[in-house]
């Protein structure tokens, strides 16, 4: 087979394979095809971004991240317009797939030439082994994570599947209590919605597995394994990442955040000093995506934009460049901000009492940050310095909050560290900045120890155990969840409630509630909302839907007196929490098992 034929075949497959996801193929293969379709959709939007920005040399892995960022930005606009329902989510994904196929065909000669050059190049074979390792590990993580059920569906802002369900049904996120959006502007929910548009919400955990795969792909691309040494580094990177004892405890976007951050850093390194101002657009899109994903990452995003601005100082057309830098990020972030403000304004301020969020300190911090970057640093000594500064500022932002009343999620330190470490370390390895002769044994030993540490971990962090769980997850892809839509277990209770009534809910499976019929507020927000009883006093809902859940267990673990006095679901008055006591006083409208509907407003 000649390189030309191989290249044409590969292009043909790239165009056709994503559409196989539309066939009703069950199990892991069907799910894998759907994930390929999602990646193709990202790539399609990314190709459009690259085309508009007139960038032709961007690696595929980076283009995919640009596409994801662009989709998040577009989804923000739809969210603001209350149009991000399932149909629009699907439309965005399918449009991405169409763009992917269309742009590949449109530019087929260019892509074909690149592929032929790649296949003919003597050093291309060094890609082979890391690519095989990456494909294996990525398949395990993506498919296995999808079938996982152990990590909590709650992140800092509330129940992720419940919000995905609300988005699916209503096209927006109008519950400022269920999705308080203190820890994010909605980016995680939006990204999850886009990824699960084809699969269904039940598999929402796949998002982070996909993030892990994209991160590794981008990291290897950044390393550019065109020598045996670089290829070995790439393989070690895959092994170390695979063995790293990370266990997801909740729905926080860890790997997706890391992946987008790395894409931001790599884009900055490659295009922060552009020949054409439009080359800054992907940077802006990525900064916006990172900013809306988690609030902890906002300083990094701002620092990157500000740094690109610093690099523009003194060059011709700096004002135009500043516009190019600012327009897209603002256009992508502002809809999320407005949607948040609108949602929060829809409830009495008291329901959010005591929770000012982090917007104000964030704005202050960001302002100081911009000043800090712009004033002393007028000339640049290379983009990696700015990446390091941005990462340090991001870390400082998180650590500075530790002394406050509402600390940032400390585990978000890790994505920043990993992404910056990869961007700087792999870049240094690739360009030869790092003197390998001096540190090869240390790095080799470190890699071997890291891999061994993963192997020798205990419990669920042990490498073999994690991968065993992942393969079990693949098994569950077949039909661990009901093939038909799960019945709404709360519908019979809510049948008697008039349409449009306001209902506060505290249930175990809020993702099954029909949010179209009533105005529902999910009280079960772990960190960001006021205490349920305060919300109820302020919100004055018509009804309250309550279900026993595991929270008394958490209380029992933390409170020794509670354990002593209230064993096993005791209903003694002194054993009841505020909400339970509140419910006890109200007339019961209906009940089923452990779920009760009570009337609040008389």
């Amino acid at each position, binding site marked *: 087979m000649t390189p030309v034929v191989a290249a044409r075949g590969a292009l043909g497959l790239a165009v056709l394979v994503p559409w196989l996801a539309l066939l009703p193929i069950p199990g*892991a293969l069907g799910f894998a095809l759907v994930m390929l379709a999602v990646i193709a959709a990202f790539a399609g939007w990314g190709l459009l971004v690259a085309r508009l920005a007139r960038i032709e040399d961007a690696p595929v892995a980076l283009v995919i991240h640009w596409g994801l960022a662009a989709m998040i930005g577009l989804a923000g606009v739809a969210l603001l317009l209350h149009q991000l329902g399932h149909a629009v989510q699907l439309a965005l994904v399918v449009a991405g797939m169409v763009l992917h196929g269309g742009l590949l065909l449109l530019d087929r000669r260019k892509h074909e030439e690149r592929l032929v050059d790649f296949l003919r190049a003597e050093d291309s074979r060094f890609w082979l*082994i890391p690519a095989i390792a990456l494909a294996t590990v990525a398949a*395990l993580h993506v498919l296995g994570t999808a079938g996982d*059920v*152990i*990590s*909590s569906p709650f992140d800092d802002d509330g129940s992720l599947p419940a919000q995905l369900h609300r988005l699916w049904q209503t096209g927006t996120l109008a519950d400022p209590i269920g999705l308080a959006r203190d820890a994010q502007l909605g980016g995680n929910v939006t990204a999850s919605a886009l990824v699960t548009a084809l699969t269904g919400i039940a598999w929402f955990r796949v998002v982070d597995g996909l993030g892990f795969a994209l991160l590794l792909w981008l990291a290897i691309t950044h390393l550019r394994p065109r020598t*045996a*040494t670089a290829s*070995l*580094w790439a*393989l070690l990177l895959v*092994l170390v990442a695979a*063995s790293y004892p990370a266990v997801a405890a909740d729905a926080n976007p860890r790997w997706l955040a890391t992946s987008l951050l790395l894409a931001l850093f790599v884009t900055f390194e490659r295009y922060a000093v552009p020949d054409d101002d439009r080359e800054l657009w992907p940077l802006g899109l990525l900064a916006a995506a990172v900013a809306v994903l988690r609030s902890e990452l906002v300083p990094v995003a701002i620092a990157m934009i500000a740094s690109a601005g610093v690099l523009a100082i003194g060059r011709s057309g700096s004002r135009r460049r500043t516009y190019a830098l600012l327009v897209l990020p603002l256009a992508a972030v502002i809809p999320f901000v407005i949607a948040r403000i609108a949602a929060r304004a829809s409830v009495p301020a008291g329901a959010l009492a005591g929770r000012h969020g982090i917007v104000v300190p964030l704005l202050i911090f960001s302002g100081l940050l911009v000043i800090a970057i712009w004033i002393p640093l007028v000339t640049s000594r290379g983009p990696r310095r700015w990446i390091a500064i941005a990462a340090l500022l991001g870390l400082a932002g998180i650590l500075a909050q530790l002394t406050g009343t509402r600390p940032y999620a400390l585990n978000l330190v890790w994505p920043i560290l990993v992404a910056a470490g990869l961007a700087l370390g792999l870049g240094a390895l690739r360009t030869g900045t790092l003197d*390998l002769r001096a540190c*090869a*044994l240390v*790095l*080799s*030993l470190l*890699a*071997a120890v890291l*891999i*061994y540490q993963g*192997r*020798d971990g205990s*419990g*669920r962090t042990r*490498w*073999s155990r994690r*991968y*065993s769980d992942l*393969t*079990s997850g*693949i*098994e*569950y892809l*077949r*039909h*661990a*969840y*009901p*093939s*038909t839509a*799960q*019945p709404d*277990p709360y519908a019979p209770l809510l049948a008697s409630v008039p349409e449009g009534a306001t209902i506060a809910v505290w249930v*175990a499976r809020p993702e099954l509630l029909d949010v179209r019929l009533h105005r529902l507020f999910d009280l079960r927000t772990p960190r960001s909302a006021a205490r349920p009883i305060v919300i109820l006093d302020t919100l004055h809902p018509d009804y309250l839907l309550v279900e026993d*859940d*595991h929270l*008394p*267990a958490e*209380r029992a673990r933390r409170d020794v007196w509670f*354990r*002593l006095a209230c*064993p*096993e*679901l005791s209903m003694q008055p002194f054993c009841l929490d505020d909400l339970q006591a509140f419910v006890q006083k109200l007339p019961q409208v209906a009940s089923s*098992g*452990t779920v009760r509907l009570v009337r609040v407003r008389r």
Partner: protein
Amino acid sequence: MTDRLLRLLTIAAVLGLGACGLADPSSVLAGGVAWLAFLLFVISGWGYAVARIARLEDHDLGMRALCGLAGYLAICGPLLAAGVLSRPVSLGLVGFGALAAAWRQWTTADPLWERGLDAIGALRTRPGMSLFVLLLVAAVVLQIVGAVGTLDRNPWDDDIAYTPLVKRLLDAGNLIEPFSFRRLGAYGGQTLLDALAGARGTLANVHLIDRGLCYAIALLLLAGYARKLGTHALWTAVVALVLVLLPDTSINTASYWSGVAMFVGLYRCVVDERWALAGLVGAAACSLRQNYIAIAVVFLGLALISRLVRNGWTAEKRNWLLVAGIAALVLVPYLIAAYRSNGTFLFPLMEGTWNPSVSLRATAPTWTDELQFLVWCFIETHPLVVIPSVFAVMVFARDPRPSRPITALLVASTVGLVLMVHAFVGSDANHLWRYAFAAAVTLLAVFSLEIGADDSNARLVPLGRWILLGSLLLQLVVQRETLPKRFTGLVENIREARHNDPTAGAQHQRYARLQAAVPAGERMAVMLDDPAFLNFGRNQIFNLDTPGYASPSPGLPAFGGADALRAYLRGLGIRYVAFVRSDRSRYFYRRPFWVWRIFNDAEIFQTMSAYALDAIDALATLSTKTAVLHEEDGLVVLDLGADVPAPPPQPYSEVARRAAFVRDLADREELHDAWSLSTRSNVLFDDGFTGLVFLDPSTDDPTWYDAFHAPATAATRGTAARWLYRRAHLRVRGSTDMHLTLGGKVNLGAAYTRPRLDVMLDGELLATVIPDAGGRFDIDAVVTRAQLASGWHDLYLVFDSIAEPQKDVRDQRSARLESLEWEPK
């Protein structure tokens, strides 16, 4: 004149060691060590003879000894097939080796005494290195002497099968054991080697060959190769330390270090392009363990193919013919011997006397089960914990030699591992790495020595060398933890061995009295803890080994009752049966042991338990129906009688009878709930559960203030349960409408909630239940025949909120399943 005298003294000294070993067979330590040293001499003599026949140059001691082992196995094959390889013949072969070695000592330009002087000279010129080597040698000697003095045998494998096979060979000259599961699975090469130790008149030194002689040969082979390659001293030292201090993973007397020796030898043959010798050594390796076949064949095949691609068929035809021809010559006698014994020469592809109703694999494993096991085995490597990082380096090594031995060995080892994973799905990683020990150690050792050579044949980027060195150092750090216990154990073994084997005499007499009850020359079947104490020359003895797994046609009538067993044995001309009563068995035939295992172990052992219990029960019943000729200390001899009625027809298949037997047993033992929670013919417990436990009311439903210490031994009776994870997965099947009932409890003291439980079949919701106020839940559902069409179906039990994300779900005892019935409606 002095030279001649010293050569003569050397020969006399070594022969004297052999005489010491033979003169006092009861001396475990001194006699054993003397015999081991003598055997090394003998085997090197065989190697010298092989080299002379093949017209090869005289190798280093390791390679010579390896050739000797292979040559010895090649000569023994035809003798085994002819059934004449008894002790006198073995001693004759030993004598031949001794003569050949003596001849070499007399004629060589490199006599042993000169090597000794060289070593003393090195002590003066390189004292530091010499001291290190001396310490290393001391550690090796301690391990070898400790192995010689180790009397412990594995009662699971060695006592009931491996050692009796050696005894049979020495007594009767053959390995005809049609009932033996373990004989069926091997060609017998390792038994032949073990017989070299037994030939001096004792079976006490069961570890003398593998952990003694073969360990020494493997190290000598590697040392010789390092010297030949010119491997840097640092690399050689690190590799030597890793190998010398490697944790002992051998749990029985099967092939471990003999495999390492064979594979290192095979590798060296390929590197040296000695194809005739490669065929000989490859075939010898195949005779040791069944799973070595794939590795040896793929390794030699790839090496030859690499050359073929480069040089073409005309140039390579001779090499192919040499390898294939000599390997066939060596192996064919073993195949004949295997066929004579078990009616197969290619198990498991050809089943022979294997019971087709039994499988060593889990029932209906899915591809994800295999993937899970493969991943587990790739990660949990043992005892070489650094294989993942070393593997990453190996794939980058380039081998410019025509036969590409490193690449070939890497691929062969990987293929071997994957095939084993496929064959043993449901087993565990440690077991698999025991089988893969030889290939893994060989690969790591030769690769490291190649890379560490100043003028290396294998090409690897500097980073790869660093990673390899880092991995070896890490391996050393990790394995240091096991050293104190291991060396303490060795010293204790040596101390005990000074008193020889204290129980052997009494046991020998007990078994002699048992055998005396059977007329000489008569056939007898035995199910005993230590058949090795029997005289296999006096009677034609059939060792039942693991009952039910292998038997001559028409097949042992398992689960058919005592009368059917009696009729079957009489049909084979076996009138006498000797067995150990369950309550007096030392290990393998204890009934409670198997009753526990049948509900508590992996599926493969559950099946084994059923057959063992059936055999134990059937023989106990027979002892009440037939004449008991002898009974002493639980050892029983039965006379099945001359006239036995025809065997009753078996109404159902053996699998169906086995299922019925297990259920009936559970009911009789008041373990029905335990049975209901076990994998069976129509229910597979896949994942999401702990193993079976019996609840202890004092610890299993704790309230927060309970402080307790878990009992040292878990309960074996009581309420059976399996703790549930958040989501549990079973597979079920049925050919008619089926009734599913399951019950369990949420531990409110731990969960503080009553989570919803959804039960789904193939994604269709069957039932949803919320536990009652006490935490109990029960499901009762009917699954129609239409839902159960075509094979196995997935049944999921999913709780909505049992897991604590910050905790390992497997440590939580929040909910449990106490029974699961799946019966025709």
